[in-house]
């Protein structure tokens, strides 16, 4: 076991996988000499050389399209999109091509591709360095979409993503990069994609979250414990496949549920979670299904008071949880 933060877990895992499998190449903007703007590929250029550590032109469409070609030809590309906000020029290649290649060829071709992108706010990143984009991709059949935020999960799920025969969107909350630290087993292991986990067991109320909001939810839950409100916090980790069974199991126990996400609320991940609960467990509920998500405002303004206005924190979550617990 070694204590690492999230970005170290990304770096070390990617490094070790590259060392053991020369089909793996990384490509993206500034992944070479610069080692990535968050240093996720620091030192890779020297160790693995420019053929495997590819500084691409400033063209996300190219990054995705070239990576698809590599994947089709047997490599295992791990593409980096510098900020999730800049993934949209690649939207067509990801959604029309990567996601549909296997289906459209009736299984003849596959596309074992990982696209990593830092997402999320709280870093003074303003309107174009703060967005959450997971819902847009999770809607698209043919893509797996994950967003782990615990360093041990990051390792296990990144290896699983690289091994996966299909395209995986691997979203890393950039605020958790240095904020979240945890023990990471030293040996190689995979953590299955598509499984949620109970991050904090509890009995009074279920909170479903992921990413930075998971951290705030855990903090709020700890505070409420002192008031004898016992909150169960579930870390979704994977958006698609969505582990609704773990959610329903918890809701069956607590009868109350709140979904906390940073993305814009409308048609964000919480909408699907709420809808599946409403379809499957409506009569087990003792309170409304509460969603706490971003307002319907572009995420998120720069100026500190405005950014703070946008982003829920542990204080606000604590209040909302208390309110629901007392419903």
């Amino acid at each position: 076991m070694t204590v690492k933060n999230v970005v170290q877990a990304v770096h070390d895992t990617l490094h070790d996988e590259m060392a053991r499998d020369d089909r793996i190449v990384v490509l993206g903007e500034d992944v070479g000499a610069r080692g990535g703007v968050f240093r996720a590929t620091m030192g890779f250029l020297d160790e693995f050389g420019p053929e495997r550590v590819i500084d691409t032109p400033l063209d996300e469409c190219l990054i995705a399209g070239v990576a698809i070609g590599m994947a089709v030809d047997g490599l295992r590309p791990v593409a980096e999109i510098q900020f999730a906000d800049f993934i949209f020029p690649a939207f067509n290649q990801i959604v029309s091509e990567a996601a549909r290649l296997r289906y459209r060829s009736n299984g003849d071709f596959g596309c074992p591709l990982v696209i990593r992108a830092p997402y999320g706010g709280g870093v003074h990143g303003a309107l174009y360095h703060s967005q959450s984009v997971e819902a847009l991709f999770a809607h698209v059949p043919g893509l797996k979409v994950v967003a782990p935020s615990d360093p041990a999960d990051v390792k296990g799920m990144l290896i699983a993503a690289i091994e996966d025969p299909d395209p995986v969107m691997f979203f890393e909350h950039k605020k958790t990069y240095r904020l979240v630290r945890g023990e990471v087993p030293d040996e190689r292991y995979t953590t299955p994609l598509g499984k949620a986990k109970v991050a904090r067991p509890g009995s009074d109320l279920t909170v479903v979250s992921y990413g930075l909001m998971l951290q705030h939810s855990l903090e709020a839950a700890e505070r409420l414990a002192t008031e004898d409100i016992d909150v169960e916090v579930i870390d979704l980790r994977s958006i698609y496949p969505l582990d609704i069974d773990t959610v329903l199991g918890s809701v069956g126990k607590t009868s109350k549920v709140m979904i906390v996400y940073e993305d814009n609320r409308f048609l964000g991940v919480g909408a699907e979670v709420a809808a599946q609960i409403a379809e499957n467990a409506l009569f087990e509920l003792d309170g409304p299904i509460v969603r706490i998500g971003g307002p319907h405002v572009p995420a998120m303004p720069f100026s500190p008071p405005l950014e703070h206005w946008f982003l829920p924190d542990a204080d606000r979550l604590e209040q909302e949880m208390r309110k629901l617990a007392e419903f």
Partner: protein
Amino acid sequence: MAKKRSGGTDRHSELGLKREDLVSMHRTMLLARFCDERQWAFNRQGKAPFVVPVSGHEAAQVGSAWAFEAGKDVFCPYYRDMALVLALGFTPRDVFLGLFGKAEDPSSGGRQMPAHWGSRRLNIISGSSPIATQVLHAAGIAYAKRYKKEDAVVGTWFGEGGTSEGDWHGAMNFAGIHKLPLVFVCENNQYAISVHESKQVAGRVYKRAEGYGFPGVEADGNDVLETFRVTKEAVDRARAGDGPTLIELRTYRFFSHTSDDDDRTYRTRAEVEQAKRNDPIPRFERYLVETGILSEDDIAAARAEAKEEVARQAAEAQEADFPDPDSAARHVFAEDGGAA
């Protein structure tokens, strides 16, 4: 062994093409033409909802295909490329299985529209409808081939309309930066559905290459020996490690864009008729006769045989089974969890 027969100048020998090649190229062009005519007939009979014609493009496709090595090189074509995939190993039956959306359609098992070619066996990468996405896949594959030190050249085909998308720009740029073993073939038929080249392409397609640091060439796309020649040069350069080439083959599409289109809104009949006078098949046949490769009778026989073959295989495809409805749920993700 360049020599004249029956008064025609031999242009093929110095290109390394033998008699068998020419006969086979001719037959492939005929198969494409007759498949096209047959599919339109099915469409008119209400038996095929959607048809993508190839007629007019046969020389561009067959000549360029012939410059590659099947089994080794990799192909990223677009929907217009029926003659190309026939040259690469598709059978007319395969074409019609796709046309009817039958289970055995090698490209997609009936999932995609007709003319969305693909075959892992033949190194033809499954294509989609969104224009020009395949050129970036070609660049990625070319990069992978070189990384793996495999002796393979990648070819990608697209219309002049396809040059407008950002994907094309990205692929040209990436290919130029990395001097990839990649050949870009533009089948410029002057129209993207109804939009004329003058509203599509500022400047000229082939001239774009220089801006990316590699050669661009223009050629008569209706002359199968010429399309072979320029493509062969490009493939040879690529194989020698000298990087990519952009080839612009000027040609014309004889029918509407697809069966959903009506070209009378945007092309005069006179223009179409004029273009047909330059039909690549009779033109090639004149060459074959002039150089003594085939006699007029040989050609008539080849035509009859090809037409007959197409009719037979089309009928076979018509008889084939539709996919099982429940199969629609399969292959969204890998079924064995294993690698692709």
